[in-house]
């Protein structure tokens, strides 16, 4: 590590921007499949990343522990691990803990300690907090990430997991042996930051509980969004777009109970001119959401794929300043920054389309 003036700031110490590649695959029938197709898809978009960040989110990968929160942690020191485990033991029942299996890859270096814990909130602690289980868990995650130096929870949902590192996504997939995991849905991210992130927490997907976000873009509303969402107990330690977007979705969807469509009417709200052409009832609804959550409007270019239990949502900014393609074949739905990244894994899709700016594509498992 360099010192003094020559030391690059770490992710979180200042705000970096980045371009990216994103891809998402879901089997609506709920059939589970390995991350191989996600790896293949993202590898086509190699030039959209620069080796400074890659990662995956898989859903349905821990059926044997599906009722427990799966915490994935990076530790940058032994003390961080001791401190964090102390915290975890104080707040949760630890059902299982282990190192996350990895295999050496010459392109993936400087790895931290990477651990996984299956946990469930301690009933007495949960009861005395007077919080819902999810809220309790989310607060614990935010506390660890903002107060225990060198410890970082990068995945905290049930029956899902995030795997990320500094490197090209295809190398990251191999490093984490993702061929060994099977899920009904995968998202993947390759990053092109304009700066060296310096540590692995800055890679994407970014996740809180079972929400995970992969994002391509650089939002111009960042500080308006950040300063607003931080009023509600969130702490944007990474200073990245993906982090603030994930928190806003968590707040609007989980805490305010908005539907995903309604969430999109806040974060990628239609223009007033568009709203004015809608029915009276719709005008009232859209206006209410834009006005009430005005500071959660996202401007500037973005394409995101949100993973959640049971589905995927893709969304572009209102002007569609980033590419995003969708396709389907039978029960499979594919979302990616480039069509080529879909064709490599499904050469003959039934339908290919380019979602309009601000119009979400929401895909859920067949019921």
């Amino acid at each position, binding site marked *: 590590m360099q010192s003094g003036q020559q030391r690059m700031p770490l992710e979180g110490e200042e*705000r970096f*921007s*980045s*371009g990216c590649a994103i891809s998402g695959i879901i089997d609506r029938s709920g059939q589970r499949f390995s991350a191989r197709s996600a790896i293949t898809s993202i590898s086509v978009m190699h030039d959209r990343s620069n080796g400074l960040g890659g990662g995956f989110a898989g859903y349905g990968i821990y059926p044997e522990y599906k009722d427990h929160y799966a915490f994935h942690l990076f530790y940058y020191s032994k003390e961080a691990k001791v401190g964090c485990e102390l915290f975890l033991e104080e707040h949760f029942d630890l059902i299982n803990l282990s190192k996350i299996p990895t295999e050496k890859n010459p392109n993936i270096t400087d790895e931290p300690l990477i651990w996984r814990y299956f946990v469930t909130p301690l009933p007495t602690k949960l009861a005395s907090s007077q919080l819902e289980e999810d809220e309790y868990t989310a607060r614990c995650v935010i506390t660890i990430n903002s107060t225990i130096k060198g410890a970082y929870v990068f995945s905290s949902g049930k029956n899902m997991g995030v795997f990320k590192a500094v490197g090209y996504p295809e190398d990251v997939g191999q490093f984490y042996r993702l061929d060994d995991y099977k899920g009904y849905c995968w998202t993947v991210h390759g990053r092109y930051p*304009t700066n060296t992130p310096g540590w692995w927490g800055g890679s994407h997907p970014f996740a809180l509980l079972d929400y995970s976000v992969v994002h391509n*873009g*650089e*939002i*111009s*509303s*960042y*500080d*308006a*969004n950040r*300063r*607003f969402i*931080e*009023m*509600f107990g969130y702490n944007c330690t990474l200073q990245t777009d993906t982090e603030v977007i994930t928190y806003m979705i968590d707040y609007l969807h989980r805490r*305010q*109970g*908005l539907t995903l469509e*309604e969430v999109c009417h806040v974060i990628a*709200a239609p*223009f*007033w*001119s568009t709203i004015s052409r809608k029915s009276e009832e719709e005008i*009232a*609804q859209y*206006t*209410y*959401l*834009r*006005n*009430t*959550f*005005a*500071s959660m*409007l*996202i*401007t*500037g*270019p973005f394409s995101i794929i949100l993973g959640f239990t049971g589905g995927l949502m893709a969304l572009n900014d*209102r*002007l569609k*300043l980033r590419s995003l393609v969708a396709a389907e074949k039978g029960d499979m739905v594919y979302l990616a920054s480039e069509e080529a990244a879909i064709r490599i894994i499904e050469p003959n899709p039934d339908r290919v389309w380019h979602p309009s700016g601000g119009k979400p594509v929401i895909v859920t498992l067949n019921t």
Partner: protein
Amino acid sequence: MGINYLYPDYEVHRDREKCISCRVCERQCANEVHSYDKETNRMVADDSACVNCHRCVTLCPTHALKIVKTDHLFKENANWKGEVIQDIYRQAATGGVLLASMGNPKEYPVYWDKVLINASQVTNPSIDPLREPMETRTFLGQKEAKIRRDENGRIITKTSPQLSLTIPIMFSAMSYGSISYNAHKSLALAAQQLGTFYNTGEGGLHEDFYQYGKNTIVQVASGRFGVHPGYLNAGAAIEIKMGQGAKPGIGGHLPGSKIGQDISKTRMIPEHADAISPAPHHDIYSIEDLRQLVYALKEATAYTKPIIVKVAAVHNISAIASGIARSGADIIAIDGFRGGTGAAPARTRDNVGIPIELALASVDTRLRQEGIRNNVSLVVGGSIRSSADVIKAIALGADAIYVATGALLALGCHLCRTCQSGKCNWGIATQKPELVKRLNPEVGSQRLVNLITAWDHEIKEMMGGMGINSIEALKGNRLMLRGIGLNETELQILGISHAGN
């Protein structure tokens, strides 16, 4: 006594070659500076009466006139400047409080001028407002904290009363009395045309102007002039004036000489009696009293109008604002120490209060720390001079801004700072019919519309440059700002980084 003679600050320079003795200057000057000397067939000027308002200069058909600062001086002294010495002479002669008007002219830091705005390069695109929608619509009022749904699961869209602005700029309070009927009419017409609001100040609402009620904010101040149920219900919102940036801590004084029949009727006070509004509201000695007035006004208007509480920017403004945000108020208006006035004691105007930039940053930060920023909207004024100031204010955290001095300038004011004399040659700060008629409300309102439209274009251009296409994404977006030449404390209060960082 000779000792009381003060050499005039300004000298009227007349180019004898150009002057045709047409006597326009003489007719235009309410201060009686110019006169015609029959003996010599020449115009002469009494410099000592000149207030430097440029009325004669701008109307001289041959451009023969200019006003220059005198080079007459006291022996130079860094401590005892000429102005300071003259103030002593004035007070020694009269025993009176020095009066002044318009905003604080002293050389305090103007933070707007030490803050720079960002633009997009490479990593994200700027947006061209000529080709893409660029939104400036703003709502002011309390926001719901929790989504509620009806039995069919539909969101209940009823909210507290809101003001809807097409652009986040409003005309701030100036009373009928401090400014003329025609000035008021200009503001009302412009607010209506622009889709924004003007503010009655504490002078009541002239019956002719009830028709502009949808674009009017009616004020309730400590003197309660002109306040009655019809007045409260006539406007779109009600503003409780607790303080004014130009004179925090003191009330107002409209001299009886300005209170003719019309003003007397509008204010509901006797003709030619001084209208003195008390320093405090005598029913508000504490924050819980404010809450009572807020709810009294809400009751009087059946909860259909947002209530604005206007305060002057003073030292503990963030604690005050936090209290107001919990008082039931829908909007907080903060007036900085450079805000204008029709008349104020000069020492108060020049020494009391703090800059709006610091007050705004501090209040916005505090309300967010307390998690109550969405409970209340924030409007700032005193003084916003340009579209760039508007952008900076919104990025620091304001929902909208108030402009008054800028609006008066658009109407012709030349900032001579002599409003208290009531002899405004531009027909603005006067009640003399022959002066008032100089301001044509049709022309005046068009100039106001032009000004705000021009600012709107500039705001959209700069927003687009930042890659922002809706004003709400600019609000509180302090990353879009950088300080230049500011020290650590100033940066920390403003919540911005230094340029280069």
